[in-house]
């Protein structure tokens, strides 16, 4: 257990928010930047601390649990924080990606850097809160807290089409968030527990489950609500556009961490509380995931000429595997999804970071105008190839374990879908490797040669290298030692599905 004299979870949420508040109240720029280091480092260090001190054998129950009253006790809302085996990996992910995104932002020389950092810090505070919340109201609340700065960052610091992208992002994500909010309120009201506390809700709903028909409606609401937030096909169109326009650190945090909110909500809240409902939606979910996210979006990704859009589409595609894992309704599938979420979060953040670094050197995102960059920037090329391989799912990187576990779980669910999904790996290999080849190898186009002659591209600076190293190191660490996350994860998932791979509800299902 934690030996700290304070509550690590609360402090990891409050520190970035406090720094953001200080900047909002007009802290001078020099101090703002220095304090921003603190605001990004403290959550990351505390997350690692919690990971290191996570008690062996724990995971099913919440560790580091604390409760604060905010004056809504009569509604059953209180700020209850804690980590279980499902939340821990994502909490660590949020800390690490936050640190990397923060470091990258500090060196980015963005216009109005102070305000940019302020918004990123708010986002970071929200992200730590999402995964540390046991109270599902605050779970939603922190998600929105993290989401709002994204809109502003896309609109103000964004690239091409930022106004359109910001508006589209806002409307889509608000719709998704409202649907999930209604779903969460529905669970709260219908359970009769008069509490938003997930533990209480779980006890109540295990004792007196909701009727099957009601569960079906509620799960559908949550599935589409969360699904829009995770870019479930065909509600994914906001994602590539938004990521294409977003400034790099915002894209890293959103695609890397915030988007996992929906999947996390499905695994942590919807599946355990609405098991009967989930079993009625699996066909739809798996179908949309495999045919929509993996195959359709996979082919769209192959056709992309814009590097950043390509990364955006590829992240949409990888969410298909996550949805497929959830549709398996087994501890193996859900566990694989959590591992994939962490791995994908790290790798997509790394890709967005490197994409921006490439852009700084080539001044274009167009793949057809690039080539031969590896001669000038070998380190950048090495990082990019590593990130690409990770995102394809090469063994040794964390992504491999996530995808492998999902495929194993999916095999017992549907062999056809699994075969299609595995075929998706080929698609991602094609576009991933082709992109790496186009950017870094071959001969530079005339236009690029002109640009590079005018501004000779420097290799990755340390300020860019450091965040990339953090992300890559985490990917490799989990890739070589997945047990560090999977043990508590297993403990948390086990009670819901006692036998790995078994469909849990066949005995109790109404069918």
């Amino acid at each position, binding site marked *: 257990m934690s030996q700290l004299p304070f509550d690590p979870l609360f402090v990891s949420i409050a520190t970035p928010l406090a720094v953001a508040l200080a900047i*909002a109240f007009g802290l001078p720029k020099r101090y703002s930047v220095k304090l921003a280091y603190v605001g990004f480092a403290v959550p990351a260090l505390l997350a690692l601390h919690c990971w290191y001190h996570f008690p062996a054998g724990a995971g099913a129950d919440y560790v580091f649990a604390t409760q604060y009253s*905010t*004056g*809504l*006790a*009569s*509604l059953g809302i209180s700020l209850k924080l804690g980590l279980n085996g499902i939340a821990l990996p994502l909490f660590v992910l949020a800390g690490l990606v936050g640190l990397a995104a923060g470091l990258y932002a500090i060196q980015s020389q963005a216009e109005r850097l102070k305000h940019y950092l302020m918004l990123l810090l708010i986002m970071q505070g929200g992200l730590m809160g999402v995964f540390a919340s046991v109270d599902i*109201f605050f779970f*939603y*609340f922190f998600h*929105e*807290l993290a989401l*709002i700065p994204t*809109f*502003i960052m896309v*609109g*103000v610091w964004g690239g091409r089409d*930022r*106004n359109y992208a*910001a*508006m589209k992002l*806002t*409307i889509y994500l*608000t*719709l998704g968030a*409202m*649907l999930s*909010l*209604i779903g969460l*309120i*529905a669970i*709260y*009201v219908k359970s009769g527990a008069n509490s938003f506390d997930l533990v209480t809700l779980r006890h109540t709903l295990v004792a007196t489950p909701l009727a099957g028909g009601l569960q079906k409606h509620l799960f559908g609401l949550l599935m589409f609500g969360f699904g829009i937030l995770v870019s479930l096909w065909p509600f994914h169109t906001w994602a590539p556009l938004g990521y294409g326009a977003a400034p790099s650190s915002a894209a890293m945090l959103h695609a890397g961490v915030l988007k996992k909110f929906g999947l996390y909500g499905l695994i942590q809240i919807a599946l355990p509380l609405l098991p009967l409902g989930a079993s009625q939606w699996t066909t739809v979910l798996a179908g949309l995931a495999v045919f929509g996210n993996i195959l359709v979006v996979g082919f769209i990704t192959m056709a992309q000429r814009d590097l950043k859009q390509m990364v955006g589409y590829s992240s949409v595609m990888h969410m298909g595997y996550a949805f497929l894992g959830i549709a398996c309704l087994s501890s193996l599938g859900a566990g694989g999804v959590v591992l994939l979420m962490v791995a994908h979060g790290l790798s997509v953040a790394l890709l967005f970071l490197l994409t921006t670094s490439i852009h700084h050197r080539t001044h274009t995102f167009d793949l057809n105008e690039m080539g031969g960059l590896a001669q000038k920037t070998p380190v950048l090329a090495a990082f990019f190839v590593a990130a690409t391989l990770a995102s394809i799912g090469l063994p040794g990187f964390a992504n491999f374990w996530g995808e492998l576990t999902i495929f194993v779980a999916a095999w017992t669910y549907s062999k056809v879908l699994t075969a299609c999904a595995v075929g998706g790996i080929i698609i991602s290999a094609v576009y991933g490797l082709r992109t790496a080849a186009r950017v870094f190898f071959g001969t530079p186009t005339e236009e690029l040669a002109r640009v590079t002659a005018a501004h000779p591209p420097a290799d990755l600076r340390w300020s860019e290298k450091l965040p990339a190293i953090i992300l890559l190191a985490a990917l490799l660490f989990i890739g070589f030692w997945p047990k560090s996350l999977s043990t508590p994860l297993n403990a948390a998932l086990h009670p819901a599905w006692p036998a790995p791979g078994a469909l849990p509800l066949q005995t109790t299902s109404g069918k």
Partner: protein
Amino acid sequence: MFAAMTPELLQAAAASNQWGAIFPELALGCLALLLLVLEILLPKSAHARIPVVAILGQLVLLAVLLWNFAPTGLERDTFNGLLHHSRDGQFMRAFFLVSSILVCLLGTVALAKQKLPRVEFYHLVLVVTAAMMLLAQSNHFVLLFVALETVTVGFYILVSYFRASPLSLEAGLKYLIMGALSSALLLFGIVLLYGVAGNPALPGHTAEAMNFNALNAFLAANPDNFLAKAGIVLVLAGVAFKIGAFPFQIWIPDVYQGAPTPVTAFLAVASKAAGFAVLLVLTLRAFAPYATLTVPILSVLAAATILFGNIAALTQHNVKRLIGLSGVSHAGFLLIGVVAAVSTPLALGAVYFYLAAYLLATFAVFGVMTHVAGANDAEQELDHYAGLARDNPFLAAVLAVGLGSLAGIPPLAGFMGKLFVFIAAFKAGLYPLLTVAIVGVVISIYYYFGWIKAAFFEAWRAPLQEGEIDDRPARTPVAWPAGVTLGLLALCTVLLGFYQGSFGEWLLTR
């Protein structure tokens, strides 16, 4: 009834009129008169101090009210049943007082740009506020109507206060006609109810048919009376005008645009809230036995109001019209709360919380509007906000917080208000209304966000040609009282989103 009373009984009735119970209203009325006296007595050079007196006096009054927020003798009737004092009434009193203070403050900023007599403005605002306080606590149709007319007549003058502006005069005329129509509907409904409740042929008939308690008892004894139904519908229609619910919202865009900005804020917040206070009293107390009639009517109104307000606001470029129509949609959300309150006690607290959040956010936005507006008060376009974030980050931040709260974005107070209303609606089982509400929220994001976009995102503007003048008004520099107030409003909006504390506890525990 009074004819049968002996002089002794009348004296006893007069003595039982506890004047202390309406101390805030009396004090406000006296303060209003004091302002006029000061204008006569003080030399012209000292007239600038009169608004300060008005604001300080109200602040003192607010402090007294909050200090003695739960006086002994709450939950009782005074003045022979004209008034009913309750903690909800106390809340509304504080609410109106706060909005009046803020309107006076905005008035000092906006009136400085006009060549007009100043003092009457504050006088009228105070009188209207006192009437609203009485209105929220009325327990009798006579008092309700008199208080409502005092409010409305005050607003006739306030809306056309900028008498040099044709748009302000036009707005005043429109408000006069529409207000008269709504008063007529209300009065007709009251008369019908009075007539039917006094009919000796019906069971439970009463001589005191104007009194809400007596009316309630009569309605309970006659569950399916056609005339009573007609009366209730007409009264609700009259109130729907005040809150701007569909289809009685037609006056809103023009009147909001033409009225001086502080008056628009007053209309948008206090007048709307007064309408809701009356609506709550009527649906929950007087008309409670006819819930099977009021609930469907209000539900349809709520759905139509949300959709109309949001869709109509989408195409607006004038920010006053925009905020007026967005206010229409807020009336719809509040109506959901009112409908839910019929069966779920929690909803009442939700409505009050929503109103409080709405007050903070709306005044924050109006505060920014008064500073961005020029001398031509009616022409406030979205373009005028271009570059606000660069030129005046403080105003832009306040605007963003206010609009975000109105849009219902967490972690701001407006989101908590919507959340409470949604929870209450869920408990009351109003699923179709919730669906409409979600659609409304998503649509509203477009125009609120468009406004924020106008202020924050850099948009290209053609460079000015030689001799061309920028048609956008110069922004008023923010003086410290307005700055402090706007900062406080924004801060409270944020704080109330994160931490509701004892305020939330007080509102939601019932």
